């Protein structure tokens, strides 16, 4: 046994339950920044529209949602029955940018080990940096899309095309974004810790994310569920993303659905998933190189 007083760092087979090298990660903050920059710069090199794709993607998706789910399927774009009428396009865009942040962060952090395997097998840096950096770059994308959302919002607001009520609750949006990040990174690293060994689960991630989207009021308003079956609603609200998305719309549009109890449950689930994810991640990060 080596004396821990004599050495600044001791590498051993044993492992502490919750050892994420957060201090070290902080010392590597330049690296986080460079990873984020790399993701951005590299993604839009040799494209004609460049960063415009940040906007084109959600606009097209929202357009499709508006036509298919709103106009053709006639799904309600209301969270609470009898609430204020929100223009469908704006309603879907609110859901889409939230879901976009969630699903892209989840997918990229669930690939954190595999997509960086080449790098991680050659050099050491605190592994948590990879999912954090990818989450941050998705957060920046979210920020840009949020700005676009508010431009459209202002247009609707000032032309009086919908019953929007501007409240100071919009200031809650950063908190909502933070929660989405926590939840998606938590789920992502949990998946990544398991999939380094059992690749099977990785095949299911795409499917899993899509199912989760159906179970979240993105393509329809919450009123679709709440009006039909109040017992189903109780289960439905346990999906941590549901209170997040409805709270986002409640904050932005000034009307809709909000239940503090469900919101707190959602936070509790978020933190539990994040904690579990971090524990699993720290368990696997020391030797995943051997199994990948």
């Amino acid at each position, binding site marked *: *046994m*080596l004396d821990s007083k*004599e*050495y*600044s*760092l*001791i*590498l*051993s*087979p044993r*492992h502490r339950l919750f050892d994420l090298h957060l201090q070290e990660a902080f*010392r*590597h903050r*330049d*690296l986080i*920044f*460079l*990873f984020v*920059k*790399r993701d951005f*710069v*590299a993604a839009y*090199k*040799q494209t004609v529209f460049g960063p415009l794709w940040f906007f084109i993607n959600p606009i097209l998706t929202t357009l499709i949602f508006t036509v298919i789910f709103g106009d053709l399927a006639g799904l309600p774009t209301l969270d609470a029955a009898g609430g204020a009428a929100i223009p469908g396009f704006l309603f879907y865009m609110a859901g889409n940018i939230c879901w976009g942040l969630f699903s892209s962060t989840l997918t990229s952090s669930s690939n954190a080990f595999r997509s960086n395997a080449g*790098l*991680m*097998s*050659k*050099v*050491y*840096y605190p592994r948590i940096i990879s999912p954090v950096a990818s989450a941050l770059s998705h957060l920046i994308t979210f920020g840009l899309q949020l700005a676009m959302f508010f431009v459209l919002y202002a247009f609707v607001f000032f032309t009086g095309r919908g019953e929007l009520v501007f409240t100071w609750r919009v200031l809650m949006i950063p908190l909502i974004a933070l929660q989405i990040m926590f939840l998606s990174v938590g789920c992502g690293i949990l998946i990544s810790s398991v999939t*380094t*060994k*059992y*690749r099977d689960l990785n095949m299911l991630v795409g499917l899993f994310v899509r199912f989760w989207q159906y179970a979240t009021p993105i393509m329809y308003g919450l009123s679709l569920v709440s009006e039909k079956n109040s017992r189903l609603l109780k289960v439905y609200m346990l999906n941590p993303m549901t209170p997040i998305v409805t709270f986002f719309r409640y904050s932005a549009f000034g009307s809709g659905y909000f239940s503090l109890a469900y919101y707190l449950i959602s936070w509790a689930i978020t933190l539990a998933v994040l904690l579990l994810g971090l524990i699993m991640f720290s368990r696997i990060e*020391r*030797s995943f*190189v*051997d*199994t*990948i």
Partner: protein
Amino acid sequence: MNKKPLTEPPIIKIDHVSKEYRLGAIGGTTLRDEMRRRKAERRHEADPTARIGYTGGAYGERFLALDDVSFEIRKGERIGIIGHNGAGKTTLLKLISQITAPTKGEIGINGRVASMLEVGTGFHGELTGRENVYLNGSILGMSKKEIDDKIEQIIDFSEIREFIDTPVKRYSSGMFVKLAFSVAAHLDAEILIMDEVLAVGDVDFQKKCIAKIKEISYSRHRTILYVSHNIASIRSLCSRCVVLEKGKLIYDGDVEQAISLYTGKQGLSRQEISFGSTDRSCFATDGKVRLQSLRFTDDVSSCFAYGQTIRAELSFLAEGTLKNLFFRLPVFTDSGTRVGTIHTQILPCVVPGSHRLMLTFSFEQLLPGKYSFWIIARSDSLADPAYDHDVVANAVVFEITAPDSTPLLPGGYYAGWGPILFPEAAAEDFADEKI
């Protein structure tokens, strides 16, 4: 070894470290087996998924890449780690640089480790050279400020200033390597770990890198761990060598000793090469001579300095009385081209029985590189011109190393100049009119 005061702990201490891998079964385990194994582990029973009584290297077999390795490294030492492929060199470096954890034992480290296990780790093709210097530098552990301070030096060192703002995907592989080297050469952690990184790139640039790393080590008292198969670079860089063989540490100490141990065909007994079991079936020989062994009298047996005189003792068995016996040593490059042939003096009369012959020869004019020679026993008699007495193909594989001080060819040498360096030609300027 020089003793440091006991109060100062070593900068790295490797304490009974082992690393186990499962052959072929890289993560390829089923959930069901995994659960059974876990269950047995909890009850302290034997692994139910392990094969019983099977010790061969089959799929799923446990394999020790490192087996109970212990040594200490003091501050400022330049340690060379040598060993054949699969000896565990890279595994050791991966453990020290925290890429993976040991299975047993502990490693204590005092200081910041920067490891270069690959040239250009994390380089991104779409980014420019300059952006990649920042990215690669940060990955290797430099802070942005450090890189800001060194970026000009790095660019100068890389010799590709004019392309520094071009995406690296447009670089030639040489330019890419030079830039990546330059970043590595400017790393300034207390402990630098390098795996074969200097083995690529052109010769002059390699020398420049080694010189730079030496300078860092001397002037700032940095500790270096260096793995390479390139004996010349080990010799010029390292102050101490560790030899690994099949995961075990077999030697720790003097560089030359370690090199001769490593270059030996059969590990320790390299000084003597035995031909007893060498296959001669593809040669038409009359069997009147049986070559037995060649023993080099100097320490180094397969690594000779340019122009060095070599003394070796050749043992052979004569089956009958032989007239005018001599030996031929044809020399080949490592690509199989015959370079030339050494002949021994003719022995007028050899009586039956075993003999020992002291050979003194040199490969003068043979440029640095990897070569081999054969040994052919033959008689200079017209009676049986078709037969050699005995032939040993590829009897000795050796390397000629360049002198450290003076370059052999002005402007550097390349394999393309051929293996022989002829004596320098005189060149006199005898023009009448001076302008």
